[in-house]
């Protein structure tokens, strides 16, 4: 049998081999729990894992270009649940947003690491927002 390379014990977790990475629980339209947000108004995850984010704008919603997300298995249970995570990078030219998304107790969480590429002097920053599933 081939020896697996590793850098931590969890690299050898038996469930990683041919793991069924199922993203069904993440698919849907998610609305920000905070209706006063100045950040992300909503997020839609398609069955093909294409993710669309709509930002809050001054004159109305701003739809970011959709990107294909990468699914990650989750080895740890959190609050009795085991749900997978997605990562997606949105490149808007003047800024890049590296995101990860997951569900915790039914709440969809987006963590955003924003890097400005336009020399505007704004600080690169991180943020986290919470979303509920649109019925």
């Amino acid at each position, binding site marked *: 049998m081939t020896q697996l*390379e590793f850098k931590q014990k969890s690299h050898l977790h038996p469930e990683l*081999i041919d793991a069924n990475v199922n993203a069904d629980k993440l698919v849907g339209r998610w609305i920000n729990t905070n209706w006063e947000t100045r950040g992300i108004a909503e997020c839609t995850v398609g069955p093909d894992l294409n993710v669309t984010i709509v930002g809050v704008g001054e004159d109305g919603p701003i739809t970011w270009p959709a990107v294909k997300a990468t699914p*990650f298995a989750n080895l*740890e249970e959190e609050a009795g649940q085991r749900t997978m995570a997605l*990562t997606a990078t949105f490149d808007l030219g003047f800024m890049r947003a590296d995101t*990860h998304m997951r569900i915790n107790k039914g709440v969809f969480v987006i963590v955003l690491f924003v890097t400005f590429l336009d020399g505007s*002097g704004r*600080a*690169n920053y991180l943020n986290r927002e919470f979303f509920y599933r649109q019925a």
Partner: protein
Amino acid sequence: MSKTQYAQLSDHVEPDPINPDEIDRRALLGNWINSNPDTNSIARIKVFESNNKLQLQVFAVGPDGIIDWGTTTADVFAAGPASRAGAGFACTYDFGFAEARFQAMIMKGLLVLAQFHLFKDESKRAGYFLREYFAMTHDHF
């Protein structure tokens, strides 16, 4: 009229220019220990500065003891686009057979670390995600 581009209203700010090196990293610096003594992942992380860059040294749990991953440089992220307060970091370790990407943030004094492991070898291992909490060791009590 402002020509600042933004994709969400919270980014529509025009602060005095903030150089990435000006972000205050003091809250990130130190020795962080995993809150879970039974972790199969990272036991502790040393976060320090060198040549004005944020550096990480990770010590992971292996089957036969601690594995020193060595150091890597991390990008620092503030608490907002007009903030000079460091609130987290992101970095990547490339092991050849696999890659570990980190996105970390400070929350209530804890370092919350999201890890994304992607395998690049032929082992058919699925990429996986871990989220763990680290406390900064100190000698105040």
